[in-house]
């Protein structure tokens, strides 16, 4: 704690120095602005963002180290791919995107600190970042205080809407309700058993799922279990499942626990081709660690799967593999992270400015027709209209899509009757 006290005056001084230094190259460039075809910097940047006549700075803030690196690596790769593609297309408002990448190190206060650095020192016009809800909640006050702009890629529990955040993943109702309807209709499911990791996302998601099951579908939840993050022993709960014989096991277990759960489920002789299992926490990324054989037959519910068949996705998968290697798998969040830079580009171009307030005001109703998932549109509540898909896990580690919602599903971060 002593270090914090020491830190105060130094960092203020340093900030001033850095700001002074940063302005030197900008001043040097001013006279040359005449040759740029792009709109003049003074017009597109009235709030002191890091925009020059040729460049605009965007931050990437994910965990490249620590526990969450497993998940966030894919997001970093997708964002870098998107930015590289945008630069190839000529950049945003005639300016190439320059990336400053910071490491949140799987530590939530670090996310807040780095977010502040990206906004206050680097004057990033937008930040692609955060993954867990905890990291987003930690960084959110910083984005609101310094009026930054965050593109957040993960599917999450909802119950949030900030002026300074665009949520490119699904909120809980978009992901869950459609899949519960599907499993009820297709599999005739009457009883459900919930298993989740013990933190906000599974608890909120299961609450929504329970309300929907009990009030709308009029069926029954026969068990609801939570395990501490990192729990690795599931034999007892598997016995409980055997005892209650639910029609559907509904899971939102995350991280290392996820791997342990499916391995032990398989070892205990629960055959996923006979027992329906519906998960909202397994993408292609997770299957890498779980092993395709261990989870084959389970149904996952996401908005995007790598195996999705459409021209946009084929182009995206090919480009991703070219940049990051043939073996890299692409999960739901990776695709959502890929949307961020494009949505930002389109909003900037619609607004004719990089100023955060103008970009935010221009964001609603922006359509991205080249999205790998097909088509998305930003809702005035800053979430995306998107389809929900249910897919069956194959031993190869890929998914076979078995259901797609007929229409785009409206995001509803504050669902009435589900809280």
């Amino acid at each position, binding site marked *: 704690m002593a270090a914090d006290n020491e830190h105060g005056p130094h960092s203020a001084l340093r900030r001033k120095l850095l700001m002074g230094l940063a302005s030197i190259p900008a001043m040097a460039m001013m006279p040359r602005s005449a040759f740029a075809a792009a709109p003049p910097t003074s017009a597109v940047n009235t709030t002191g963002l890091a925009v020059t006549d040729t460049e605009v700075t965007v931050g990437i803030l994910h965990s*490249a*180290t*620590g*526990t969450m*690196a*497993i998940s966030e*690596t894919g997001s970093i790769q997708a964002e870098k791919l998107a930015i590289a593609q945008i630069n190839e297309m000529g950049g945003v408002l005639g300016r190439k995107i320059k990336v400053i990448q910071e490491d949140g190190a799987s530590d939530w206060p670090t996310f807040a600190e780095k977010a502040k650095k990206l906004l206050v020192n680097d004057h990033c016009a937008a930040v692609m970042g955060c993954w867990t809800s905890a990291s987003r909640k930690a960084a959110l006050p910083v984005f609101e205080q310094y009026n930054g702009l965050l593109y957040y890629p993960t599917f999450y529990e909802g119950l949030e809407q900030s002026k300074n955040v665009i949520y490119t993943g699904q909120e809980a109702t978009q992901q869950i309700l459609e899949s519960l309807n599907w499993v009820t209709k297709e599999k005739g499911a009457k009883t459900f058993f919930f298993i989740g990791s*013990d933190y906000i996302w599974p608890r909120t998601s299961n609450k929504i799922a329970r309300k929907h099951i009990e009030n709308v579908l009029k069926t029954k939840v026969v068990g*609801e*279990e*939570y*395990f*501490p993050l*990192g*729990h*690795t*022993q599931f*034999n*007892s*709960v*598997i*016995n*409980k499942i*055997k*005892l*209650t014989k639910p029609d559907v096991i509904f899971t939102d277990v995350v*991280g*290392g*626990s*996820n*791997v*342990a759960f499916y*391995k*032990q489920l*398989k*070892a*205990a*002789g629960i055959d996923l081709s006979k027992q329906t299992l519906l998960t909202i926490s397994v993408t292609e*990324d997770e*299957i*890498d*660690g*779980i*092993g*395709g*054989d261990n989870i084959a037959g389970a149904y996952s519910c996401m908005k995007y799967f790598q195996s999705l068949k459409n021209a946009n996705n084929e182009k995206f998968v090919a480009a991703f593999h070219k940049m990051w290697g043939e073996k890299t798998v692409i999960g739901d969040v990776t695709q959502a992270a890929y949307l961020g830079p494009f949505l930002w580009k389109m909003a900037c171009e619609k607004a004719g400015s990089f100023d955060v307030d103008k970009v935010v005001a221009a964001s609603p109703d922006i359509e991205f027709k080249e999205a790998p998932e097909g088509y998305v549109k930003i809702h005035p509540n800053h979430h995306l209209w998107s389809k929900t898909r249910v897919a069956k896990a194959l031993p190869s580690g890929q998914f076979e899509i078995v259901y797609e919602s007929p229409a785009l599903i409206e995001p509803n971060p504050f669902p009435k009757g589900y809280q």
Partner: protein
Amino acid sequence: MFGDYSLGDLGAIFAMQGFAGLILFSVYVLMALGLAVIFGQMGVINMAHGEFMILGAYVTYLCSTFFQTHLPGLFGIYFFVAMILAFLASGALGMIVEWTLIRHLYKRPLDTLLATWGLSLILQQSYRTIFGAREVGVELPSWLIGSVQVTDTIEVPINGLFVMAITTLITVGVGLLMYRSRFGQQVRAVMQNRPMAGAVGIDTEKVDRYTFGLGCGIAGIAGSAFTMIGSTGPTSGQLYIVDTFLIVVFGGAASLLGTIASAFSISQTQSTLEFFLSGSTAKVLTLLAVVGILMVRPQGLFTLKVRR
């Protein structure tokens, strides 16, 4: 919750639940054995224990890929080769660490905590650099997958039985080594009175190195076995470290028997409570019980009588 079930069904569930408890017990013993040797016998707080386990897991992963591509005919038995290699790899790394780091800190036991914690961070990042941040999937030979049908309704997972067998084997091995061999005698002598052990001609430095190597090697075997039931990623070792310390401390640091007794009581409490209550509550109650007992008996369940 038992209303609609026949007596037969209930009997089967309880039998399976008994096995679940025993499997958890074996996992705990296997996890804690290496640490019991290092912490119990040498007094070194090895925070990098989990990382030594994961080294074993990665060795198993490398073995499985090697056998798959080069010796597919022998894939069925690769697991045994992998466990031996895991022991050697973790043991060798352990001895190097002892030589470069730990031996300078024997007189400052609390500093070993910091040093080995730093080591654990270094190892995690090395794994991440070498094997990538994503978890790797370890393919198992087909005979390790699935369950044994004991009766119509009772099924026991094969890999659970396999872990039980390994644990028994290693525990007996370590017991014999510690209490029936010349090496074990030397280890115990050094632990009880270092200067005196040196005076009667025991090479205490060598004994220290081998003891540390042995503890780490056992961790490697544990890591190798856990690829069957858990995840293999750069930070997976962290999942085990808290439980491991809990078991060793609760059992009484210097006693092998204590470790076993403590693993048994904690695993049984945990698995029974998990069955009747929920997962998180079970963990809370187990930890509360352990804290309560340690307040009354700070030295743990079993203690060694040593003249101080």
